């Protein structure tokens, strides 16, 4: 399927010219907190920020009252991160990168490239200067100056051998076709997670990789699954858990044992892994899926949300799960 989409995208890129691509300011909407929201960031347990469709960014100190912030784009935002109470970044469709230096009051557009027709899907920052934004088709942007400049990296270590050969041949024949093809040959990078000095990356076609130099070079894990992964976390007990398409969850112990498939009893896409402060693991997924593990991810019990709406991202905030879903923000109490 991927190659089909890749082909479509490349021929579309060649054929389409963009007229106006000035971003439009997001509309203040009463229903913003009930719209499709895609990521939630718990900023030092002091406040939370959520982002989602139509350039919606909302902030709350208590998880109940949400204030919609002024945002200069209407693009769907897919991820948000803060390094401290002031400095934060949000990324999303139209290759948008936004930044704030005042805790979300004002957002500035650092990148807006709708003509690329590709979304960014995650953003991570080590500190106020060093950050990475990743996205569809292996897009990888890096900044060392807090986002004043973003430079793109092409991570050829994710190419299959035959793709490398194919690209090399194409480069000799037709430079333009080569660039087009290169722009869509890599798998989607879905999520990057920092774990001390190590960074983990998960993505399409079973991609799991790790890096010890904040993503400059990556080592791929052996393939364990052909579907996509959407999250990876180090658990409270120090083991690795990754989750993805159709309820597929794998676990690797801290000493690096082979990945072990965990039967979740669910076939729904898992969007997010949430660690609670009381040593539980939560899996948030489509179709209202909420899976709870009390034994570090060996077994999960289901607590489906009755409305069946996708739970997309969550955080453990003051002993409650605050999650964003396809119809907005939800606070869920999970008694032990």
């Amino acid at each position, binding site marked *: *399927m991927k190659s089909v*989409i890749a082909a*479509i*995208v490349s*021929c*579309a*890129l060649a054929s*389409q010219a963009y007229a106006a691509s000035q971003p439009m300011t997001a*509309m203040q*909407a*009463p*229903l913003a907190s009930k*719209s*499709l929201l*895609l990521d939630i960031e718990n900023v030092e347990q002091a406040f939370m920020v959520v982002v989602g*469709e*139509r350039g919606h960014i909302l902030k709350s100190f208590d998880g109940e009252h949400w204030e919609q912030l002024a945002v200069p784009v*209407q693009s*769907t935002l*897919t991820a948000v991160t803060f390094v401290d109470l002031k400095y934060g970044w949000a990324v999303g*469709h*139209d290759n948008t990168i936004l930044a704030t230096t005042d805790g979300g009051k004002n957002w500035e557009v650092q990148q807006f490239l*709708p003509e690329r*027709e590709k*979304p960014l*899907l995650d953003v991570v920052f080590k500190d106020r200067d060093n950050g990475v934004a990743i996205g569809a088709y292996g897009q990888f942007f890096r900044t060392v100056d807090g986002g004043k400049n973003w430079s793109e990296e092409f991570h050829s270590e994710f190419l299959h051998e035959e793709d490398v050969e194919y690209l090399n041949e194409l480069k000799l024949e037709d430079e333009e076709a080569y660039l087009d093809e290169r722009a869509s040959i890599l798998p989607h990078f*879905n999520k990057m997670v920092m774990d001390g000095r190590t960074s983990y990356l998960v993505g399409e076609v079973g991609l799991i990789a790790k890096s010890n130099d904040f993503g400059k070079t990556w080592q791929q894990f052996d393939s364990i699954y*052909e*579907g*996509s992964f*959407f999250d990876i976390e180090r658990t409270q007990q120090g083991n690795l858990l990754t989750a993805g*398409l*159709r309820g597929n969850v794998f676990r690797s112990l801290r000493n690096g044992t082979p990945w072990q498939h965990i039967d979740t009893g669910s076939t729904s*896409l898992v*969007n997010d892994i949430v660690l609670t402060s009381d040593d539980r693991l939560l899996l948030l997924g*489509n*179709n209202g899926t909420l899976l709870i593990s009390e034994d570090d991810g060996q077994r999960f019990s289901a607590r489906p949300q009755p*409305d*069946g709406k*996708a739970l*997309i991202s969550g955080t453990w905030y003051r002993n409650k799960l605050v999650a964003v879903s*396809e119809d907005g923000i939800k606070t869920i109490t999970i008694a032990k």
Partner: protein
Amino acid sequence: MSINPVINKLENGIFKHRAFVLAFFALTTVVLLFQATQLKLDAAFTKNIPLNHEYMQTYLKHQKDFGGANNILISVCDAEGDIFNEPFFDALKGVHDQLFFIPGVDRILVKSLFSPSTRFVEVVEDGFAGGPVIPANFRPDEQGLSVVKGNIEKAGIVGRMVADDYSCSMVTASLMEIDPSTGEKLDTLSIAEQLENDIRAQYENDRITVHVIGFAKMVGDVANGAKGVVVFFAIAIAITAIMVFFFCRSITLTLLPISCSLIAVIWQMGMLSSLGFGIDPMSILVPFLVFAIGVSHGVQMINSVVKQVRTGINCKEGAQNSFRALLIPGGVALLSDTIGFITLLSIDIGIIRELAITASLGVAMIILTNLVLLPVLISYMKLENKPLKASKRGGMHKSDVWHAMAALATRGPATVILVLTAGLYVFGLYHAQNMKIGELHAGAPSLHENSRYNQDTFLITDRYAISVDYISVIVETTPDACTSYDNLDVIDRFQWQLENVQGVQSAVSLASIAKIVNSGYNEGNPKWRVLSRNQQTLVQSIARVPTSSGLLNRDCSVMPVILFLEDHKAATITRVVDKVKAVASELNNDNLTFKLASGPVGVMAATNEAVEAAQLPMMLYVYGAVIILCLVSFKSVRATISVVLPLYIVSTLAQGVMTGLDIGLTVSTLPVIALGVGIGVDYGIYILSTMNARLKEGDSVEQAYFAALQERGSAVLLTGVTLAIGVSTWFFSALKFQVDMGILLTFMFLVNMLAAIIVLPAIAAFLWPKPKKDEKKQ
């Protein structure tokens, strides 16, 4: 008067050939009675909508592609709260099949879990997998049902086709205008009957309940309720008869005006049938009204004859004199009634026009039966002592009352009355400003809130995410417009702005579905729930949305945005429609326009606007007609003012009452205002026709008014009470709109009567100067 020779000729002609006249009436009545028995109840969806309204033009233009607003929704529910059992699925399948085979149902648009177009799609590692929600090899056993349950979740139809709590499942269908098997106009009432007999009666039991809503069912229920009207009719006749009897103390005199009024009703119904009309359940009250008006004029006639006879002449002469005396005021009054009804033709809604025709026909018949037939019949009677005594005895008593009342026409009391009236007027005007247009209550406003139909409506809106109150905004563009990101993005932004309007529950359009499909193409990842800027990807998403979804037409040049509303209250509709207009004017561009409207609420919005727009012109026409008729018959501006001013005040008060009682201005209450004015003017005309003659002879206002009271006072009182009783029986109707009409008409009849005998003389007291002759006399 130049009209006198004509009246003389008529009088002579009629009373010389009484037998001939009677034979003519008898024969016509027999023929029309036969015709009347052929009269059918007739209801059609299009009659209820203002077809020429801008919104309805859009609606009709796209009806073929998107179906209309004439839908049937059947929710089959399991009383135990869970549909996954064999009896339920058997019943659901039965309902689906039965509905499918009802002639007039658009079979392609019959949808339920059992229709092959109800499919699920799921994302698997290598793409999509999918199939019908109920597989071909479905067996309603535990395994089969759990597969179906899984498929229902994957299909994303919970809230639409399956209740949120899995206690019900929905079968929907669209009705056609023409029955394809006969080629004739769809018989809505027969469909309603089949829904009741072939579906509900057959499948509803202790465990399964069947809830049917939709225009056809609503009309069917209205028609059933309307049949109860016969009982009210009988009660009204009985009460009226008793009233008339106490007035004249003669059984024959009681029977005559009542029979003549019934003849008018028979003629009216017979003529309707002969002209090819049916009677709509919504206007079933008109025969009532005709009867009541007939009796009220009949009472004037017997009153006059009795008074004539009391002076010692025989019945025939009395009848002849009464004919002569009443032809003008009675004729003018009835003519103004007729014109009041005819003005309703100016409203471009089929059902109101039908009401206008039905009612004006009926009133025109009264001119013949009660101003011609009645005196002729009376002329055969031998009226002697009995009624004479009765009225004498009463007369003594009455004339004291009349004397006291005549004082109202002197300037002292008149001042008090006018000040009070002005106060009332200001009060009424204040409330009238707040009169709401449209339906103010949830559910079908024609029916009571606790009716089965409305209870079913509430159940469906309660258990499903959908609402039957939806409005479609039609996006008109160029062919293949849906393949352009820019177009869909505009639609998407439009939809979002509307979703944020208070009262909008949810919304759906091709844009919002395309986003979900796009996410589906990306493994179901919600982060991809966007409109792709890439044309090929966008086309790929749209290709998965079939035209049967009702979200696009064949070449996707037309795409509706469907807004589901919380209710259809006038305020909600106005808020949404205003926002649609505002956002549309902001987003419309060279190749894309947002147009109102389709869907049930679209129809209501158009109707509300048509009703609101019709209100002022209708009032102008009615009052114009009344004023002209008064000017012509009285030849006096002062007389005209005296008659029309109280009428106007009462109209305003009636609007205030509507606000107070939460009755909105709708297709059924709008005509009431015209009817109220048309009929209300009768009293004034009767009173003033006597007064006017006296005033011209130089009497004081007080004297003239006293004379008028003596001559017509009791008849006017009786008329008002009779009419009011006739319509007040509607209070007990099974139909909400009849109750509303009943309240308003009762109010208008009674208060107009009071205004005619209290406010009219007070106004006259100031309009006519005190003549010198008056002082001499006193």
